C-alpha cells in the first residue's frame, strides 16, 4: 500500500512538473514586449523596400500567425499549443530549414545527448562514489587522503575551463582524439559504433571528470558520518569483516542521499551537456538549441527546451522509481 502511495505521489509530481514547465515555456515569450511577427515583417520591409502593398502585408500577417500558432486569444493559443505539443509532439516546422518539422531534428539529436549523458553520469557516479566510499571509510589511510585531494582539486574548476584544458591536451597537443565530432550518417555498423566511441570519448571524459569530484566529496562525508552510526559500530563489535561493513552497512546506507542528489543534479548536468556539445560540435540537443537561438528559429527553440524539460523530469522520475528498490523503508511498512 505504501509503495503504491509513494509511486502515485511521484507520478503526480512528475506530471505536474511537466505541465508547469510546458506552460512556462508557452507564456514566457508571449510576455515579452516584442512581437516576433511584426519584427519579421519589419525585417522584410527593410530588405524589400516599399514593394509590399498593405493588403498583401495583412495577408502575410495572417499567414504568419497561423504558421507560428499565434491566432486567436491567449487561451485559445494555449489550448491549441498544449494539444499540438503534448498530444501530437508537433512543434511545427523549423523556420530556418523550412519546411522540415522540428520533431525530426529533435529525434535525430536526442539519442546523441541521451547516450553521452547517460554513460557519463553513470560512470562518474560510480567512480566518484567508489572513491568517496574508500576515502570516507579508510579515512586514516594515505591512499584515501590522496584520492580526496583529487576530488577537492577538481571540484571547483569551472566546467568550460576543465573541458578546454582537456581539449588542448588530448585533441590539440597529443591529438589522440578529434577536435570536433564528425560522424557520417548511415546504418549502424560496427565501424560506426567505433567512430561514435572515438568521437564521444573526450566529451564524455570532460563530463565524468567534472562530475566525479563532487561525488567524491559528498560520498566521503556521508560514509564518514555513517561509519559512526550505532548499527555500523555494532556490526564491528559483532566481528563482521571490514569489507562487508563497508559494503553492506556503510555503502548501503550512505548511498541513499547520493541517489537523491543524482536526481537533483540531472538538471545541472543537462546544462553542462549544452556546453559540452558546443565545445565539441557534438550533434546533440545542446548544439541544436544553440543553432536555434543563433538563427532565431523559434519553433526549434521551443522544441529543444520542451524536450530538455521532459528529459530531466523523466530521469528524475526514474530515479524516484529506483529508490524503493534500495530503501525498504519506502517499499514496506
Amino acid at each position: 500500500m505504501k509503495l503504491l502511495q509513494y509511486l502515485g505521489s511521484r507520478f503526480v509530481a512528475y506530471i505536474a512538473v511537466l505541465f508547469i514547465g510546458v506552460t512556462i515555456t508557452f507564456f514566457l515569450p508571449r510576455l515579452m514586449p516584442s512581437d516576433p511577427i511584426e519584427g519579421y515583417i519589419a525585417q522584410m520591409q527593410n530588405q524589400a523596400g516599399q514593394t509590399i502593398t498593405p493588403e498583401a502585408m495583412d495577408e502575410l500577417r495572417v499567414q504568419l500567425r497561423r504558421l507560428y500558432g499565434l491566432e486567436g486569444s491567449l487561451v485559445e493559443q494555449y489550448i491549441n499549443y498544449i494539444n499540438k505539443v503534448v498530444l501530437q509532439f508537433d512543434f511545427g516546422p523549423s523556420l530556418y530549414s523550412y519546411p522540415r518539422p522540428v520533431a525530426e531534428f529533435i529525434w535525430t539529436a536526442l539519442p546523441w545527448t541521451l547516450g553521452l549523458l547517460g554513460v557519463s553520469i553513470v560512470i562518474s557516479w560510480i567512480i566518484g562514489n567508489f572513491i568517496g566510499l574508500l576515502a570516507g571509510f579508510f579515512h586514516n589511510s594515505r591512499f584515501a587522503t590522496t584520492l580526496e585531494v583529487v576530488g577537492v582539486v577538481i571540484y571547483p574548476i569551472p566546467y568550460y575551463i576543465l573541458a578546454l584544458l582537456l581539449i588542448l591536451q588530448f585533441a590539440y597537443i597529443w591529438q589522440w582524439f578529434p577536435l570536433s565530432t564528425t560522424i557520417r550518417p548511415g546504418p549502424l555498423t560496427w565501424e560506426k559504433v567505433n567512430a561514435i566511441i572515438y568521437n564521444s570519448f573526450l566529451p564524455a571524459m570532460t563530463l565524468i571528470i567534472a562530475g566525479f569530484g563532487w561525488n567524491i566529496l559528498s560520498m566521503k562525508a556521508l560514509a564518514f558520518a555513517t561509519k559512526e552510526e550505532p548499527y555500523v559500530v555494532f556490526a564491528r563489535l559483532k566481528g563482521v569483516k571490514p569489507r562487508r561493513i563497508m559494503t553492506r552497512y556503510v555503502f548501503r546506507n550512505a548511498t541513499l542521499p547520493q541517489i537523491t542528489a543524482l536526481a537533483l543534479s540531472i538538471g545541472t548536468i543537462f546544462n553542462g551537456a549544452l556546453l559540452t556539445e558546443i565545445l565539441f560540435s557534438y550533434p546533440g540537443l545542446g548544439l541544436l538549441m544553440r543553432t536555434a537561438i543563433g538563427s532565431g528559429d523559434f519553433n526549434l527553440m521551443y522544441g529543444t527546451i520542451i524536450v530538455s524539460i521532459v528529459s530531466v523530469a523523466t530521469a528524475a522520475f526514474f530515479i524516484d522509481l529506483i529508490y524503493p528498490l534500495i530503501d525498504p523503508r519506502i517499499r514496506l511498512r
Partner: protein
Amino acid sequence: MIRLNQLVATYTTVRGTVKAVDGVDLEIPSGNIVGIAGESGCGKTTLLKVIYGDLVYPLALDSGGVDYVFADDDRQEVTTETIQQYWFKRISYIPQSSMSSLNPVVKIRKQFVDFLEPKANKEETLDRVRQFIRQLDLPAEALDSYPHQLSGGMRQRMMVALATFFQPDIILADEPTTALDVVVQKGILLLLVRLQRQMQNTVLFVSHDMGVHYQISHRMLIMYAAKAVEFGESAEVFSAPLHPYTRMLIDSLPNIGDDHMRQGVSGRPPSLWDDLRGCRFAARCPLATQRCRDEEPAFIEHRPNHFAACHYAGDELPKVEPSA
C-alpha cells in the same frame, strides 16, 4: 570467571590522556548477573569496552589486564588482544543504543549470520535461530523483516536473541533497556534473567537504575570516579552496604508508602583531570576525615566476598534532617 588485574584504561584527548578506569582489581565469578552502577562518567561503559576487547583509539589499555577463563577451554590463554575472535561466540554485547543498532536497509536474517565464517552453514543456523527466537516471544517471520517493521520492544528482543543465540560465556549489556518504556523494559529484563538461568552465562549489566539492579543482579559492583568502590552479593550490598556512596545511592531510592523527601547525593564527582589524592568520594562524604583526604583507601575484603574501598567501611551515616 573473569579476573580484572589492576586494570587502567585511558582515553587520549587533545588535553592529554585521562584515566577512565583507574586500577580496578576484582574477580567476577561465573554464572552470575553482575550489576554495575555509578554516576555518568564513572567508567562503567569503559570497563565493559575493555572487557569486550574493543580497544580502539582513543581508548587504550594502559596497564593491567583481563584474564578470561572460559568454562570449557582452560588451556588457551585469552587476553584483551585475542578476545576478538570469540566475539558473539563466547562473549557478546548488547549495546547502549540498541534501538538503532540494526542496519535499516538489510533484512535482520542477514545481520544475524554475517559475522560467521564464510564456510558456516548459514541456512541451517538460521533454522535454529527461527526456533530460538520463538522462545523469546518473537514470531519466526520477524527474522525476515527489516528493522523498521518491528516495534522497539521486538527489536530489543532481537538484540537479546543475537547476543544469546550462540550461548556465550559472557554477555555484556550496556544499559540495554534505557530507551524503552517501563512495561517493555520489564519484559526484556525478565527475558534476560530467564536466559541467563538456562544458559548459566556471566552477565555484566550496566544501569543507572538501582531499582533494576535490586531486581535482577546477583552481585553488585559500584563504581565511582574511575574506581571500584564496592563489590559484593547484591542482597548484602543492598541490606548492609559498606561504602557510604553505596548507602547514599540506596537511600535515594523511594519506598512504597514512604512520602518523605528522598535524600540525593549532593555535589558532583571530581574531574578525572584533577590531581586526585586520597579517597575520591571524600568531598561529598558525610564521614570524611583528614585521613580520607590524604590517604587513598584500599579495595579490600571487609566481609567474606564483600569488598569495599573505604576507611570507615560499614559505619553508620550521620542522621540528616530531611529538608522541608
